[in-house]
Structure formats: C-alpha cells, structure tokens
C-alpha cells in the first residue's frame, strides 16, 4: 500500500485538485515546480539554515518521565512548542515563503483560524519583506485578539471574513477568492495539509522535518529509529502529517490520530471528521468532510480553534480508510484535563490542540515496553484565556 501522494495528486480515493479554472494556472505552475524547487541545493540550504538559526530546530525529543510513570509506558514528546512563534506551523511557512520567492511572487495571502498560522505567515513575510494579507473569520478575530495584534505588529493586514459562519472555513474561502482576484503576483500559503494538489503534499514535506528528526533522535536515545507509536492531534492535519511522514511505510510503527470531539462526537458540537464526515469536496480536494445529506458543509465545533475545521487532509482520509492509522477523538473536557495534567507533571503548558493528542491516554492503554512519541505541536500561551476560564484560575 502506498500512503504518499500519487502522480495524479491522489492518496487512494482522496485528494486531487477540484479548483475553478481561474486557479488553474497558479496551481498548475506550483504543481510543475514544487518538487524541482524543493530539490534545489540552494533551496535546501536556505530552508535548513532558517529552520536551524531562526526557528531553533532541531526541536528536542523529550522523555516525559513523570507522564510515562503515570501511564506505565515510555512517552517522548516532540517539542514543536519550542519553535519560534510557538508551534509547528512555522516549518511550513518558512518553506512556502522560500517557494513563493522562487516562483517570483510578490504578495502573500493566508487563512487562519486561531491565528497561529497567520502569525507564522506574518512572521516569515516580515523576515523576507513581502506584503502579507491574512484572512480571518470575524468571530475568530474577536476571540483571538492577541494573535491579531501580533500579526499587525509583524506588518500583516488582517482582513475579516464576513461570509458564512465567519470562522476558519470562511477565511479559507476568502483567501481563495483573493487568489482568484489576484492570479499573477500572489502566492497562497495554506496552513494545513489540505487544499488542491500539490498543497497537501507540499505542506506534508515541509512538516516532515518533524519525523525526520524523531528518527535520529530516537536512535540516539533508544538505539532504534522506530517507536511503537506516533501520535498527533488532527484538525486539517499538518502536524500529524509531519509526525507520520517518515513512519508511514514502517509497518511496525502504529499511527494514531486524535480528533476534536468537542462536546461529544454525536452532540452536534464536534469536529471529529473521521466519525462524522463523508467523502466530499472542500477547498479544492476530495476528502472526508462534515456535511449535510444535501452536501452543504456544516460548521464544526471544538474548544480548540486550531481543530475546528470541517474536513481533514486527504492523506489522513486515506490513512483512515485503509486503517493504516487508528483514529480517536477527545472531548473538550478530556483535552483540557490532559493539558492541565501535562502542566502539573512536566511543567509544560501545551496548546489546547496538542492537549487533544495527550488525551490519548484516556482512550488507549500502552504496554510498559512501548515507546510512544507524541507531537506536542504548540505551546499554550495563546490559550491562557481559555484555560483561565475553564479552570477558574
């Protein structure tokens, strides 16, 4: 079984480029060039240098001893939370800004939900001195004020998405419309492993530095490259894609995805796409998608603004359908408790997104001899308000 993208841009039944003709020249140009550009020695050198000196990579692989003891297994945390800007998102934005420069683009657009991808995009645009416009749902702008301020400080223009439900899905629609309106000079930095081919594959490759590092770090610590399990939270699925990438074809490595169940998978307020979704087309790709019987896309819910997306990347739909990955979901309550537990046990305040991955221990027991790697995709600073409210701190 192949878990990577095929030459047509599909992962099994999922993926492709379901785009209006207006986007065809841009997407086709990217498709023809992205692998070539990524393989250029000067590109690799610049990318690696920035990841090292600017982002602070490699991110540590940390043996969480007290957490391990509590769950009677061996838990390593991949510390993406220690990256510059506080999450894994910057791995991709560094890659894509270098790509945009080589494609001769002069203007960057992005969508953002919680603001993490928006901040990571605004950051690299400031670094390169390129104009940056970030689309963000009007409702998210109101509830993520610190990240809006960060983007503004970084010189980005934050444009409210006023259509639909005025959250991430609509911000993505607005970014796509901007791209249609500006077909020549603009590059769209998609933040997750979604969108038309080649985006899911390109984002996955930029994020794959996560699993590449896990391999040699684990070799140093455990004397073997492969853990028994790799675990990540999934919204669109970019940190998960990066965490899984180099293990996809290593059969001995179990792959685990944790989605956001919100107030419960069947509560009507959930973002557990694998459980609730059906095959459909959203934002340019065929994938699992939360929708009505009539094919209208429904609004997901999660306490974590980074996971409330109604779809999931096409690679993950394929991993789900082929049963290569085990899918679980964690409720708001389970995630918040898991976040607090990590804080108390290890002195690390995780992003609420990452807390969903940590909540795996509520759903699955591991053996004492298992080596379990969890991607700690982001830090919790941005979520303090949520933690304060939830725990009455």
């Amino acid at each position, binding site marked *: 079984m192949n878990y990577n993208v095929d030459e047509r841009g599909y992962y099994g039944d999922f993926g492709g480029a379901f785009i209006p003709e*207006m986007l065809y*020249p841009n997407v086709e140009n990217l498709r023809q060039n992205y692998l070539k550009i990524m393989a250029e020695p000067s590109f690799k050198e610049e990318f690696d240098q920035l990841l090292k000196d600017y982002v602070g990579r490699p991110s540590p692989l940390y043996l969480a001893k007290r957490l391990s003891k509590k769950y009677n297994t061996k838990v390593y945390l991949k510390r993406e939370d220690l990256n510059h800007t506080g999450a894994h998102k910057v791995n991709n934005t560094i890659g894509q800004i270098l790509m945009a420069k080589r494609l001769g683009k002069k203007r960057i657009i992005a969508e953002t939900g919680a603001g993490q991808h928006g901040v990571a995009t605004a950051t690299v645009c400031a670094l390169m001195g390129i104009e940056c416009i970030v689309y963000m749902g009007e409702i998210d702008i109101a509830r993520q004020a610190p990240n809006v301020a960060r983007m503004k400080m970084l010189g980005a223009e934050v444009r409210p998405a006023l259509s639909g439900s005025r959250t991430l899905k609509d911000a993505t629609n607005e970014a796509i419309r901007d791209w249609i309106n500006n077909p020549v000079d603009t590059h769209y930095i998609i933040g997750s492993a979604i969108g038309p081919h080649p985006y899911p594959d390109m984002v996955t490759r930029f994020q794959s530095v996560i699993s590449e590092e896990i391999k040699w770090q684990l070799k140093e610590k455990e004397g073997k490259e492969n853990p028994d399990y790799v675990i990540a939270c999934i919204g669109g699925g970019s940190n998960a894609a990066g965490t899984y990438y180099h293990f996809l074809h290593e059969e001995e490595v179990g792959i685990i995805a944790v989605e956001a169940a919100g107030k419960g998978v069947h509560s009507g307020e959930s973002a557990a796409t694998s459980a609730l979704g059906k095959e459909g087309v959203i*934002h340019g790709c065929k994938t699992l998608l939360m929708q009505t019987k009539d094919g209208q896309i429904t609004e997901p819910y999660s306490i974590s603004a980074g996971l409330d997306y109604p779809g999931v990347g096409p690679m993950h739909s394929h991993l789900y359908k082929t049963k290569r990955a085990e899918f679980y979901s964690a409720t708001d309550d389970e995630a918040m408790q898991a976040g607090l537990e990590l804080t108390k046990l290890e002195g690390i305040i995780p992003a609420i997104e990452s807390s969903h991955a940590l909540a795996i221990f509520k759903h699955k027991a591991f053996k004492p001899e298992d080596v379990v790697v969890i991607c700690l995709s982001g830090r919790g600073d941005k979520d303090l308000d949520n933690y304060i409210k939830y725990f009455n701190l």
Partner: protein
Amino acid sequence: MNRIKQKLQEDKKLLSIYFSAGFPSLNDTVTIIQDLEKNDVDFIEIGLPFSDPLADGPTIQESSTIALKNGMTTEILFDQLKDIRKTVTIPLIIMGYFNPMLQYGVEDFCAKCAEIGIDGLIIPDLPLDVYERDYKAIFEKHGLVNIFLITPQTGDARIQQIDAASDGFIYMVSSAGVTGSQSGFGNTQEDYFSRIENMKLKNPQIVGFGIKDAETFTQATKSTKGAIIGSAFIKHLHKEGVNGIANFVKTIRY
C-alpha cells in the same frame, strides 16, 4: 438536437441570466424562469445554492446563503422543476458546485436533469481531467452538455484542450476575479477577446463575470456569441423582488 446547440445557431447575440434557486423566496424558481423566457432571455442558468461558493463574490454568496436558509435543497429544486418543460422551451442549465452533486450521486443527478429537461451543467470546481475520466460518459448518456470556463490567464494550449472537450459553448470569464467584482471592461479585456477570436475555436463563447448593463453587454458580445448576467440580476431581485423582471431585461437589451 440539444436545445443549447439549437439556440447557439440563432442569428443574434444571446442573453443568459443566472439566478440562485430559492432566492428571494423558496418557491420563486418557476416564476423567475417563466418571466425570463417571456422577456426574450435566451437561456437560463439556475444556480444550485452551496454553503461555500468559492468562485463567487458577495452578491451571489448572499443569495445562496438566503436560498439555503429558505430551505432550498437539490431534491426541492428538482421537484420545483419537474413540470418546467410544460411551459418553458428555452435552454436551461444548472450551475452549481460539485459537492452537492456528488452527494446526490452524479449518475442520479444527471438522470434527474435529463428527466426534467435540463440541457447542460456548469460546475466550476469540477476540473476538466476529472470530468473526462470519471463523468463524461455519464453526461453524454443523459444528453447533458458540460460547460467549461476559460479566463484571461488560461493558456492557449489549455484553451484548445477545453475547446476539444466542449460540445456547446465555452464560458468565457471576462477578467480575473470572482463574480460581481469587475468594474468594467478595458484594454486587457479587448486583448483577451481578440486573442480568443483569433483562435477560431469550434465552440462559440459566451462571456460572463462583469456584465451588468447594456454597455457591458454590447462590449462583451462584440466578438462573442453572447453574455451572462448574474450578480446584477440578483441585485435587482434583491431590490425589486420577482416583479419587474421585464424592466431589468429591457435595460440590457433595449
């Protein structure tokens, strides 16, 4: 012969009107279609509303949202149209995004269109290669014409490919941008129009995006077969309701 191809043979510039089904009110669909035909509109694009219409500007987005709030569904639209051929003879095209059709089942959707007397489909986010591989046979079996878009950025080779795959007309998007965002026609459009004219395509072209009045209609149809009006008509419906469709058409073709 398919009604679209018959219509394209008429010796006149064709006017096509787009509206979102279920807007302004759920049950306006048939009235709007009948009134448009009475006022000499040449063909009609019936918009199947979608929650996330990413090629559309605010006007059509809003009309889609209202239509969905009014309760419009694929099933209801087909039901409203079931007797349409008893009263309407001009070509009817359904324009919508791919996901609702996919959920209905593409084969069932096409069969239902044929049963009702729909002549063609415009699906902006169904790309040429996927259509040819997976759906062309189904469309043809049901006698449906699939209409593809081209834009000023579409390269010549791609246009040739689209022309070869088309069997009706080519939907020529006037300029870069989502629906309703164009302010007028300038030199860029002139160059684009003459480039396409010189390509001598086998399919006639109908221009859409940015046509809103007599002036833009005349400009758009100078070297093409016709033009499509969407956002401007929706705005009219928004202001005047379903009354005064005659007045609207008169402002375009006087």
